[in-house]
């Protein structure tokens, strides 16, 4: 045991008595993919513990909206928009709203320190969490879509397109949610922004576009969820124009890449203050 009195007073430097040993070996850097999988798995299990009631809320909200809208719209294109909008709304609720809240709270409580002191690529934390939240929307979105198709008498044939819509709309909205949560200076603000984003997705995605004034329609075009809704809505037609579907999905994917990159940058910024 060392009982050498250390002369440590402010400003005084200690004399080095022995030659400094060579630098210690660094632990391995965790590679992106294993880290992403580990974060994804942990986040998914978190969601299972804490988020199931909220998922029910999200699904019931969308189903309730469709039942309400049934008295307003008279089938055809509007019905397609309502069903598609309500389905994507589930994604917006979980991926945008809940993820913004989660990152907002994690940042405010100092929980990011945990990840920041592990040798993890920032992208792994953001993508893992975003991916888990997006995955968690799958059952709710599918239930909503099937229920809506039955309710409005739409064909179920092209529902497989959800396989592309959920991950791409999920990426765009989760990226947005993560970025909002990580950039908001206070957790309440992150919650507020998440809620507003979801409300926008609700109002602009579910209500038929051609009844809206020009300015609102422009806002609608700015919202990434819109493109997910449109891609999905197009597939209900008798002869879907797949080029447009692909185009809309490409927009979602593009927004997803950009917003996830912004979120990764925001994470890096939030982690080292």
């Amino acid at each position: 045991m060392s009982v050498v009195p250390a002369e440590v007073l402010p400003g005084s430097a200690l004399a080095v008595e022995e030659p400094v040993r060579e630098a210690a070996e660094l632990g391995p850097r965790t590679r992106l993919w294993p880290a992403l999988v580990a974060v994804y798995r942990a986040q998914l299990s978190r969601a299972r513990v804490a988020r199931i009631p909220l998922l029910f809320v999200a699904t019931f909200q969308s189903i309730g909206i469709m039942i309400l809208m049934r008295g307003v719209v008279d089938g055809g294109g509007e019905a397609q928009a309502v069903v598609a909008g309500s389905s994507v709304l589930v994604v917006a609720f979980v991926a945008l709203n809940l993820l913004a809240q989660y990152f907002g709270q994690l940042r405010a409580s100092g929980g990011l320190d945990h990840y920041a002191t592990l040798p993890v690529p920032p992208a792994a934390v953001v993508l893992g969490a975003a991916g888990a939240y997006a995955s968690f929307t799958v059952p709710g979105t599918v239930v909503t879509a099937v229920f809506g198709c039955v309710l409005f008498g739409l064909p179920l044939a092209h529902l497989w397109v959800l396989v592309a819509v959920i991950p791409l709309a999920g990426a765009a909205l989760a990226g947005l949610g993560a970025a909002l949560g990580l950039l908001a200076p206070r957790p309440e603000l992150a919650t507020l922004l998440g809620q507003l984003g979801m409300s926008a997705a609700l109002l602009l995605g579910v209500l038929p576009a051609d009844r809206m004034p020009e300015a609102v329609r422009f806002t609608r075009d700015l919202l990434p969820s819109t493109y997910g809704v449109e891609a999905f809505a197009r597939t209900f037609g008798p002869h879907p124009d797949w080029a447009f579907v692909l185009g809309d999905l490409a927009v979602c994917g593009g927004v997803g890449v950009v917003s996830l990159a912004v979120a990764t940058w925001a994470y890096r910024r939030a982690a080292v203050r």
Partner: protein
Amino acid sequence: MRGLTKTYPAVRGRRGVPATSEVRATDDVTLDIRRGEIFGLLGPNGAGKTTLVRQLTGLMRPDRGSVEILGHDIVRHPERAARILAYLGQESSALDELTVSLAAETTGRLRGLDAGRARAERDAVLDELGLTPLAGRPLKKLSGGQRRLACFASALVGRRPLLVLDEPTTGMDPVARRAVWGAVDRRRAEQGATVLLVTHNVIEAETVLDRVAVLDRGRVIACDTPTGLKEQVAGEVRVDLVWRETAPLHVPEVAALRDRVAESGRRWTLRLAPEEARAVVATVTGGAAFAALDDFTLATPSLEDVYLALGGAAQQGLVKA
């Protein structure tokens, strides 16, 4: 101990949040920690302990100064901190909704272990800390001390040569505390790990630490072994007097002490030379003062006394329990 291998020849100053007035949370702190040592940072709330630790772990950039850990410059390469140390912060919010077992395993994976190793180390650490029966429970559902122990377990998965532990035993029962110190000792004995411990618990500081630095308002006001620090105030003893209702000020000897005591309700605390202390005890245990006396203790200096004697800012900064 083969001496100095880790140096923090640091001159750090950290500007606080701009909304409040500038606070120097750490001011010209210079510390050297030796390899294989259990080194403590002791100080009251707000002394700058956590800020200092955040700078060491690469979570916060110092305004000035340098940090070197085991030969690596952490100010220039903050990302290396994560590959060389394990940090147990005060917050568990990143792990709260995970089960104990998944929290430990995920942390291991994120330290670069492959799946098999992460699981094996997880099982070993949970077993070592007696957490196996709780492995399947989410951290949120555990008591504060158990949750803390689970976070500590996560910090240990994936071996690191430096452990930075910020108040690791807060809220723990004695069994859990013992498990923590046992695990820390084993890492030191078997792996030569160095431990930096932040605490404001003086009892713990006295028993587990090799050396302590006492921090006050961002400055190191003393740094030595616990015994060495206590020697600085040797020759003084502490007398605690507890009166039944109020102090018998009509007794001249008691009244004379009045301006030298730290008064807290019915309790008077005095720091005196042994001779004086004996006289005081003789006075209060006999005669008129005794009727008013409820209890008294006579104690050799603790680290708390050291802290107060060194001119710590807060009068009751350190928690003794």
